[in-house]
């Protein structure tokens, strides 16, 4: 076995170990966990949508725990100001002298969990999303680089929409994936209950991935080769969303990039050195569902974006 292979395989093995470690705390939700790790490997941001109490925060926190990444959490509320997230210049007094010092906000972490992002005002959302896109924050004319790697995992609640500010389509497009967290099965829920009501502390997880390894993995993911025809089919899938009858607004070229990149990340996560169509197929719903808007007719018929994406996948 060559040295090159050992290097790549070591990182892939570490990722597998990290999944196993997270599994100690998070029961079930394997698909969600896989998509979150794909998002991390693809250096993207994810929007998690679920009803309350499904363990989103625990999952994101555990991901941070199995790595040596900094974790911070922002609970979005309507009165949250942009500076509450990004940070602000404050007057710092030392030795009788006063000076303005930039106080970093919670966004200065490797993993940022922005809970209930749709409860923040559009202005605060915009500040968060800009930081997410640019990976830097500008305050008082100074630009501050965010730490790397940097992920925002935002959550939103599909119910109880009163007093919320739904994210504009242009902003949701900045999330690489929209991950739906569903209710666990009966057996999984029983295990969750047993795990967290037995009077024993939550299981410990080992730190198995360093930030350097994550960054190396992110770099390797982009090197994963993809066959021309698979890439073209992925692009064709995204283009079809712009022509499909049931879709009012289709996905942007950013979706094409996202689909190929997440396909590469999934292949890498599975220990493969090439992208398979199965990877693209598996990633398509979460990459496209928040980037397309169905027309009135499709909505009236009760069709979801996932239904339409599934149909398009069957066509290409």
């Amino acid at each position, binding site marked *: 076995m060559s040295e090159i292979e050992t290097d790549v395989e070591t990182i892939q093995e570490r990722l597998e170990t990290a999944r196993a470690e997270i599994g100690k705390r998070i029961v079930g939700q394997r698909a969600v966990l896989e998509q979150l790790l794909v998002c991390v490997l693809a250096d993207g941001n994810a929007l998690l949508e679920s009803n309350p109490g499904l363990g989103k925060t625990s999952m994101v926190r555990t991901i941070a725990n199995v790595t040596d990444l900094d974790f911070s959490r922002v609970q979005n509320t309507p009165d949250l100001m942009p500076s509450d997230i990004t940070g602000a210049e404050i007057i710092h007094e030392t030795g009788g002298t006063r000076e303005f010092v930039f106080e970093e906000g919670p966004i200065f972490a490797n993993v940022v969990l922005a809970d209930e992002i749709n409860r923040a005002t559009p202005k605060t959302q915009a500040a968060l999303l800009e930081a997410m896109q640019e990976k830097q924050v500008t305050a008082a004319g100074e630009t501050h680089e965010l730490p790397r790697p940097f992920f925002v995992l935002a959550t939103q609640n599909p119910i109880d929409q009163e007093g919320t500010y739904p994210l504009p389509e242009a902003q949701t497009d900045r999330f690489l994936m929209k991950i739906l967290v569903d209710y666990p099965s009966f057996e999984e829920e029983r295990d969750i209950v047993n795990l967290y009501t037995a009077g024993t502390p939550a299981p410990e997880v080992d730190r198995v991935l360093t930030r350097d390894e994550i960054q190396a993995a992110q770099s390797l993911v982009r090197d994963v080769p993809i066959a021309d025809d698979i890439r073209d089919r992925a692009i064709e899938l995204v283009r079809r969303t712009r022509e499909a009858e049931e879709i009012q607004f289709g996905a942007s070229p950013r979706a094409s990039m996202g689909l190929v990149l997440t396909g590469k990340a999934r292949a890498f996560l599975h220990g493969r050195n090439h992208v*398979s169509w199965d990877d693209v197929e598996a990633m398509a719903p979460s990459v496209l569902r928040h980037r397309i808007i169905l027309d009135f007719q499709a909505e009236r018929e009760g069709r979801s974006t996932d239904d339409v994406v599934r149909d398009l996948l069957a066509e290409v």
Partner: protein
Amino acid sequence: MTTDDAVADRMRRAVRQIRREGYKVAVVYAVVDAALVALLASLLVQVVPVPVVPETVGLPDAVVPLFDRVGVTLTDPRVTGASVTGLTAGLLVFVLEVILRTRRPLVEQFEAANPEVREALRTARDAVEDGLQNRIALSLYADVLDSLQETSSVGLVDLRRVTVTLLVVLALSLATVQVAVLDLSLSGLGGGPDATGTDRPVEYTGLQDGDEILGEPTDVSAGEEELEAGITTGGSGSGNASDVPRAYDTGGFVTSDDVASQQAGFTAEEQLEDAELIREYNLRIREETDE
């Protein structure tokens, strides 16, 4: 050459080899199918004469010396129309099949026959053609090259289909020989002479060489068979003047029937060709006279 270059080069050569195998398979299928179609077409033309296909076709002048060059002297440089039809149909099928079979990427055909390298091989092909030599690409090349040890291009050939086709080709070959020996022809089916025996007007295609039809002219001095013929005339009867024989010289030809005058011309449809023939004869004679 570095190790990385060597791996990439091996991958490149493997892809070339796979393509070559694909071409070979396409040619195998094309040859077998072309033989089948050629024999079938030739047999059909032999059994059911087609008017547009001539019975024999002369070989082009450029071809005849080629035979001489290989030491074969052709006394009659002609081939049958059926052979030409078969050869043409076979060539057409061969070319079309090779084109059609190589239209789908050969590497993907190979993948279909060897699922263990599915998607990996085509990815490696595209990557190596793009000149990718990063860590992941090199590990992919190494994996694919390993997997190729377990693959085979035999799967590209549907042996059952080829065998069945070859058996049909064999049967057709035997049938062709049989037809040639028996000179079997389903006259009447393909527009040849009418099976009912009714003569159809022969289409006039111009004057033919008499010598070609009748053979070389020979001088005949006299008939070999001599016949004696005598005509006796004599009077008899009741003395009716009209019954009395008389000399033709003095009385001319006398008959009891009226001679109906007839207009020279051609009324029957088939005689129109005769009229054309006569006209052409006249024109030829006139030309010769003028000369």
